């Protein structure tokens, strides 16, 4: 069964304490992997798209990487405003494009 698993479910960090979020996936034909940030009560905000193993993308304190089985979202020296839920989504092609979302990792950064 195709699935996307994110870990940990929740992560509590002190301001400045770097860490990584994990997204592991099992799909038959990966076409793209996406990272989103979601604040409470709002729609997800697009962060990155990764297409192939070895690819990396950066934006401010965030860096996303991709291997053949998983992706990591590295957060360097986080600030309280980085607190949010981070969603991973995988798009596969099975006669049509299908996007599968993970349940997300809730990140709390304390000042």
């Amino acid at each position: 069964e195709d699935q996307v698993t994110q870990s940990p479910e929740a992560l509590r960090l002190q301001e400045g304490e770097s860490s990584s979020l994990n997204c592991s996936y099992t799909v038959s034909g990966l076409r793209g992997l996406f990272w989103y940030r979601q604040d409470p009560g709002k729609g997800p905000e697009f962060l990155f798209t990764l297409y192939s193993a070895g690819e990396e993308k950066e934006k401010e304190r965030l860096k996303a990487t991709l291997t053949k089985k998983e992706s990591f979202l590295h957060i360097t020296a986080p600030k309280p405003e980085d607190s949010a839920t981070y969603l991973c989504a995988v798009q596969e092609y099975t006669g049509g494009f299908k996007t599968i979302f993970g349940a997300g990792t809730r990140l709390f950064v304390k000042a």
Partner: protein
Amino acid sequence: SQTIHQWPATLVQPVGSPLSLECTVEGTSNPNLYWYRQAAGRGLQLLFYSVGIGQISSEVPQNLSASRPQDRQFILSSKKLLLSDSGFYLCAWSVAGQAYEQYFGPGTRLTVT
């Protein structure tokens, strides 16, 4: 630039009442459009997607339906709401064709009482 709108922002409806949620996109043509539902603490569940006017694909059998009467308008409907229809409903769009990211609207919080 592209903008996506959803309304209403919040809605409280009794069981058995009808539903109509609307989504419109500005600044792009012929987008793919999507309706998702997000339960508390869970991932996004794809309900419907559309690749063009009048073309609707359903991912999950339920008492909801969707329509796309215009290129940039997507409507989610129900004739009779159930308690289990409560949730956070999100509309999204993406560029048609390849594996492109989706851009989400602000969402509608639906509570069925």
